[in-house]
């Protein structure tokens, strides 16, 4: 661990053997999200700008995130705020932003790019979001094989 501060814009990209519509469903459908995102339970609700995106622990006792949808353009672009409420220090930090971009790519694949930015006021969150690599690898495995590679934690 270095003392260096984590970057305030972080980019994660991967190719998934699935259509943009399938990837869109995977990032917005609460039932699918629970299968690759630590068992997170997302409250069902409208996918529209200004709507809440609230997520809970698997047993729904702990609020993990109370975010807002900023942009919604299926099946290409989905943007929402981010604040990690499961940790007191991160919960006290400024809100950051998560952008999902889906583009059709060669060979029946889709290119998924996740940009986590506006992390200037959230240094602890910035240092933790490399965890997206785990989430995204899990999402890819789920879409390509029908099963996540790790049991939900």
């Amino acid at each position, binding site marked *: 661990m270095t003392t260096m501060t984590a*970057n305030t814009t972080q*980019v994660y990209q*991967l190719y998934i053997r699935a259509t943009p519509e399938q990837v869109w469903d995977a990032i917005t459908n609460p039932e699918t999200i629970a299968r690759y995102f630590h068992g997170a339970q997302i409250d069902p609700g409208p996918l529209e700008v200004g709507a809440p995106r609230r997520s809970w622990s698997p047993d729904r006792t702990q609020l993990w995130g109370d975010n807002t949808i900023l942009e919604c353009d299926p099946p290409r672009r989905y943007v929402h705020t981010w604040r990690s409420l499961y940790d007191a220090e991160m919960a006290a930090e400024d809100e950051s932003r998560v952008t999902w971009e889906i583009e059709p790519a060669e060979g029946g694949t889709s290119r998924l790019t996740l940009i986590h930015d506006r992390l200037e006021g959230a240094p602890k969150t910035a240092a933790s979001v490399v965890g997206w*690599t785990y989430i995204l690898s899990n999402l890819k495995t789920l879409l390509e094989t029908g099963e996540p590679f790790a049991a939900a934690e």
Partner: protein
Amino acid sequence: MDDDLVFKALADPSRRLLLDRLFERDGRTLGELESQLEMTRFGVMKHLKVLEQAGLVVPRRQGREKLHFLNPVPIRQIHDRWIDKYRAHEVSALLDLKTSLEDSA
């Protein structure tokens, strides 16, 4: 992701240096990267292209600038596929060695 492209990209010290520079501070222009390295602009461009093809660097336009970001996902996938497995194997091999040495002592 194509493992061959990732391993090929990582096999060059200049390209690993570029990744380390981006790890320190992400989202840099070609000009910034060039000024940090003892390399011509053409050399940096050439190496960035190899890194982009391997998915290790993702270019993004921001206004007039083209910024280069380190993408850690392929490294994670290499880790899951190639390193985790052998690390577990290595640990158990060492444990077997310890057991056999202690048993024969």
